[in-house]
């Protein structure tokens, strides 16, 4: 075996790659093909499913029936991405330029939430934001807020939860971009009589764009598929497309509709990413991901 490889060294990388690639083909690519097929099934779990191209009507039926949830997912994901960006940029900026010897500690705190269970974190926000919890309760007692004021079970709670969960994914790429900037460029701008604001606008911000781009994708894509925040922090009025896919698959066993919705979700995400890449320029896409 080793002697054979010595004669054909070109084969070694392929041999090293083969197990991982084979696994991904079997359990990532092939299931996707299966799901495409399942979207064209008809029948039930008990009687078995049959495939026919005529079942393409499932797509239009599903889109018609769940367009509200689709639009809501896009809206919530977009708002969460903007909220994350606004909250993350100043933090990433501080860590990159102002943190000094606390830099490692601050970076560690940014990823600390990932060391606690995802579901427990969402439930912790449910405790904090509760109608009489320790945030709203005191404010209601002193009369700043009306008694019927609530955050839980509103879109605000769901967007808040989504933003919290994916916040580190926005901070880290922006931090990496900022950290790479040659600070002499900013000094040069100031030598050329740019004020701090102008230097930020013309030097720091454009050079941080790859990080902003990567961070936005890392927040937007998982946010589009969320159902946990919507389920635990929201109400029936905040159901997202993820909730529909989850319940069609696991509660109703309506595989064709669920599979069709999953495909349309994926297509929607790819379209959004493509438009975003076009607007910002594809260079950012490559440096952001690669």
């Amino acid at each position, binding site marked *: 075996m080793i002697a054979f490889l010595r004669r054909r060294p070109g084969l070694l990388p392929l041999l090293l*790659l083969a197990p991982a690639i084979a696994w991904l083909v079997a359990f990532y690519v092939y299931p996707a093909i*299966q799901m495409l097929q*399942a979207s064209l099934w008809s029948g039930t779990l008990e009687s078995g499913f049959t495939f026919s191209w005529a079942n393409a009507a499932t797509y239009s039926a599903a889109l018609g029936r769940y367009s509200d949830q689709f639009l809501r997912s896009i809206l919530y994901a977009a708002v969460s991405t903007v909220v994350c960006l606004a909250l993350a940029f100043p933090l990433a900026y501080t860590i990159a330029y102002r943190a000094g010897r606390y830099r490692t500690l601050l970076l560690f705190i940014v990823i600390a939430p990932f060391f606690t269970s995802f*579901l427990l974190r969402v439930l912790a926000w449910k405790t904090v934001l509760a109608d009489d919890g320790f945030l709203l309760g005191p404010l209601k007692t002193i009369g700043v807020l009306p008694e019927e004021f609530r955050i839980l079970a509103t879109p605000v709670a769901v967007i808040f939860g989504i933003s919290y969960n994916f916040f580190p994914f926005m901070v880290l790429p922006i931090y990496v971009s900022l950290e790479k900037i040659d600070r002499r460029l900013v000094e040069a701008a100031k030598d050329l009589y740019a004020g701090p604001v102008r230097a930020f606008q013309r030097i720091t911000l454009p050079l941080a764009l790859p990080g902003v781009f990567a961070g936005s994708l890392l927040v937007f894509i998982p946010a589009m598929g969320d159902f946990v925040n919507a389920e635990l922090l929201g109400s029936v009025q905040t159901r997202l497309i*993820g909730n529909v*896919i989850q319940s069609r698959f696991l509660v109703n066993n309506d595989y064709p509709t669920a599979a069709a919705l999953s495909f349309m979700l994926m297509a929607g*995400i790819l379209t959004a990413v493509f438009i975003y890449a076009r607007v910002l320029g594809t260079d950012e896409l490559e440096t952001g991901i690669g």
Partner: protein
Amino acid sequence: MLRWLGRNALRAYTGLALVYLLLPIFIVALFSFNNPVGKTNYTWVGFTLDHWANLFAIPGLLDSVVISIRIAFISTLVATTLGTLAALALVRYQFRGRPATSLFIFLPLATPEIILGASLLTLFVAIGKPPFFPLNEFTILIAHITFNISYVIVTVRARLAGFDRRLEEASADLGADGWQTFWRVTFPLILPGIAAAGLLAFSLSIDDFVITNFTAGRTTTFPMFVWGSARIGVPPQVNAIGTIFFVVAVSAVAIGSFLQRRRA
């Protein structure tokens, strides 16, 4: 003046951001000491150590933790092995189709978890006859290995990028064959990268809910247990276990970075 204001506003903001990041972790730990009335554990009643003393008094909780740890362990082992081999190939060798391979490996990371889980469920339904392919610990394991492979490849590849090939050439010059060079020079040098990838894979697996939800059937992992009890009220013991996981993970990272620093 403006500068002073800017600097302190940024400092105050950073403080608030840190509170925002850490508050849920604190709440999870705090409510493991709560003594709730009834089943829901959302309002603070009083301090008690009872739930820590009777950590596994809740039926099914211990089982779920054991299942989660077992799945995390095996999936980390498999994914780290397959992923490290692939990462070596991608960093060390030039071959046709390398950029396409990199892109392909990145794709599962860019796919929302719900779609990964849903497509695996469809696969298991499609290959079985009705009722269908049994969903159990084995199908969860397949799912976890699948998403972990890409994470491991990306992590190990990032660590390998700064690798100095001249060390291997020196080893060859001193008469070591390819196998000896790999085990005595290459492997010890890339071990921290592999360990980091393994740690990431383990923590992703033990905490995964979305993909597990689709591939678990009746098997209850720890996150599945949390989800199941969320409707009727999460017992404080669950918070205690979440706190233990947090402390163990933070310690592992701290020890890892300490060892790294001592080597350097």
